[in-house]
């Protein structure tokens, strides 16, 4: 109605000028409204079912991002020197990492299964593009997670080495003041205790590293699967005009294939045989009846 109103009033003169005001707000190129932005007059329809899946995946991605921030904080806390044995920090990190990896794996599975579309329709193009965009987001998240984990891993290893060096230095620098047997025995007990402690420590760290390596591998798998979907930037497939042409050719190809299939089916030898056989059956039936009637 607003456009019709415009027309009517412009016939009375003057409206077009006042409505075509120049856009003063932007610093860059000039633009001009011919019709003001109308808020919420039209109804946007209900989307098809697969949109729910894509929205679920998008919210998973969002949740994963939030968790990653928490993970970053937990990593930093665990790397700081602390008085406790830091077990709850480790557990926290493990829990967060598994949660994020699961979210990513779940999203990836859903993405590849539910969102794949067949057939050259417009809806399937939309679906394919939504899939691509979510795949890019997922891949970026996976890469980020892996980077965070590898830096954490590196710092852990560094700390382990430092700790081992420190242990060696402490053991080595112990001053040899007393040379009594008693002192030797006491020494060796102390040394044994210390050795045991550092062993336990090392085993712990090893386990952590092993876990991280596992999750790194899992993520690598996800990335490999997703990389087929993600567009390489700067290449020809990232060009809008190339994609439009391709869609047109795929649709045409699809049509041609359908037509060809139709033709082959019609001309198909099978159809011929079947028709011939049916006709023969009828002929035989008629002959049979005739035979019965005559004789």
């Amino acid at each position, binding site marked *: 109605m607003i456009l019709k109103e415009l027309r009517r009033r412009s016939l009375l003169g003057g409206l077009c000028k006042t409505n075509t005001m120049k856009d003063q707000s932007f610093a860059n190129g*000039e633009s001009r409204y*011919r019709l003001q932005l109308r808020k919420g007059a039209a109804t946007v329809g209900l989307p098809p079912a697969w949109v729910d899946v894509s929205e679920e995946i998008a919210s998973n991605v969002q949740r994963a991002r939030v968790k990653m921030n928490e993970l970053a904080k937990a990593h930093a806390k665990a790397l700081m020197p602390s008085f406790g044995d830091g077990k709850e920090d480790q557990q926290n990190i493990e829990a967060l990492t598994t949660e994020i990896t699961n979210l990513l794996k779940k999203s990836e599975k859903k993405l590849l299964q539910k969102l794949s579309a067949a057939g050259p329709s417009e809806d399937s193009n939309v679906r394919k593009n939504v899939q691509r965009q979510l795949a890019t987001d997922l891949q970026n998240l996976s890469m980020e997670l892996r980077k965070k984990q590898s830096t954490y891993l590196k710092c852990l290893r560094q700390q382990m080495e430092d700790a081992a060096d420190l242990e060696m230095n402490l053991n080595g620098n112990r001053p040899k003041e007393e040379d009594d047997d008693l002192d030797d025995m006491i020494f060796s007990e102390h040394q044994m205790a210390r050795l045991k402690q550092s062993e336990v420590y090392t085993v712990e760290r090893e386990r952590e590293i092993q876990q991280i390596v596992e999750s*790194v591998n899992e993520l690598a798998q996800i990335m490999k699967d997703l990389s087929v979907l993600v567009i390489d930037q700067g290449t020809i497939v990232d060009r809008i005009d190339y994609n439009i042409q391709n869609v047109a050719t795929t649709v045409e190809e699809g049509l041609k294939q359908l037509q060809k299939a139709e033709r082959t089916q019609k001309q198909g030898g099978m159809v011929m045989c079947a028709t011939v056989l049916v006709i023969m059956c009828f002929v035989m039936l008629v002959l049979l009846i005739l035979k019965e009637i005559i004789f």
Partner: protein
Amino acid sequence: MVLVSAVRDYVYRMLQDISGMKVLILDSQTVSIVSVVYSQSELLQKEVFLVELIDSISKSKESMSHLKAVYFLRPTSENIQYMRRQLSNPRFGEYHLFFSNMLKDTQIHLLADSDEQEVVQQVQEFYADFIAVDPYHFTLNMPSNHYYILPAVVDPSNLQHFCDRAVDGIGAVFLALKRRPIIRYSRASDIAKRIAQETAKLMYQQESGLFDFRRMEMSPLLLIVDRRDDPVTPLLNQWTYQAMVHELIGIQDNKVDLRSIGKFPKDQQEVVLSSEQDAFFKANMYENFGDIGMNIKRMVDDFQQVAKSNQNIQTIEDMAKFVDNYPEYRKMHGNVSKHVTLVTEMSKIVEERKLMLVSETEQDLACNGGQVAAFEAVTNLLNNESVSDIDRLRLVMLYALRYEKESPVQLMQLFNKLASRSAKYKPGLVQFLLKQAGADKRTGDLYGNRDFLNIARNMARGLKGVENVYTQHQPLLFQTMESIIKGRLRDVDYPYVGNHFQQGRPQEVVIFIVGGTTYEESRSVAQLNASNSGIRFILGGTAVLNSKRFLKDLEEAQGIARSNANVV
């Protein structure tokens, strides 16, 4: 960055305020405009999940009311008709209409009438009506470019379309830059004068409100020149990367289609050459062929190093690092194979057509004197069996343009030889060129032999010697730009439109070549811009020419002129 960022900004503004899943509908012109500045992945980030052409979207009846439709079209009557049909049977939830140039009131009324169901949310004009191929180079990609050659009486309506499109494009450039220029044009060219006057009418009378920008100290300069003032540059063979690819293979909207020159695997059939997205291309697009070879070799060596380290995976850390770097590696691999393929193919073509030999003579004809030696060289090449027809034609044309007044007998000999050697040659094409772009018709001093200063300059250059025989040619545009920088562009040759005059030097200059630009000229512009002369130059034209395109335009114009003469 100026032109590219202006168009990118427009596309960004179109999509920014509309939330939810969108479909972007373009026409055959705007698809080029958007594709050179915005990538598919960037569109996906903005939730545009479908891109279609306006004529193909009319064919489908599927209702997709959960999508919001964003239309970006040129305001042609054809597009308005499509729009009316689509508005009367709306398929999408919301309609946001953006036009690349000024809409007439009648067109808005037509749209209003068809919007029965009130699905249109906004109608805006975003003036991205040109294809920004490089930061300081734009083109209008006009399909029928040859109309600039013909006089107005031959085909007035098509010529009017031609001029309208040029004026629309130029107007859009200045609206995007938010400036209103002083306009000058090349005196000897009727069409340049016509376009200049119509542009002035648009900017100072018809839409003076729209073009009324805050006046800065110095208005920019719009200079409209004719391709026929410098017919030599599009005929020459090129040896700098971007220009060479366009000359030997052909670049369209920053894409190179390799299918015409051989069989390639699927992912190498079409490649993108964009200075915005390819750092290697940006660094090498103006380098000459020899230097490119070396730089590519260096790039391949770097890549091989990376590839080797990737194969040497022994620990888990190495594996992790490999997976981390895999996207980078893949991109590098794609880029390296693209450039290697291009340079290999071009080397093949250079070898086949003996272009080094031909180009040496071409450059001599364009830059140095000596009619006798030139005649001999051209005759030898004409007799040479391995020289292709198009190269023979170019040689004769270059000779004719330079020596048309000296020794007409020898010129005639060359014409006959050309006609006898080249089966496909349309007789009279060279004469047609001379009639259009001969010495009497040109503004400016193409060969540097009219003006004493230029003659002296040429002699000095001859004594000094040149760095590279194959790239010694400087297009006429370079001299024109230098004169502008010195503030010495002659009023006699380039008069003003209207009574706006300009004292001193402008700070921004847009040069529009009616008939098309070449990549050699855009290279000159880029080099001058980089040299901090205090003036920013922008170059634009009705098309981007290579020798094939230029010759095609000449042939089509000659065909029309001939049939017109027959009719009359």
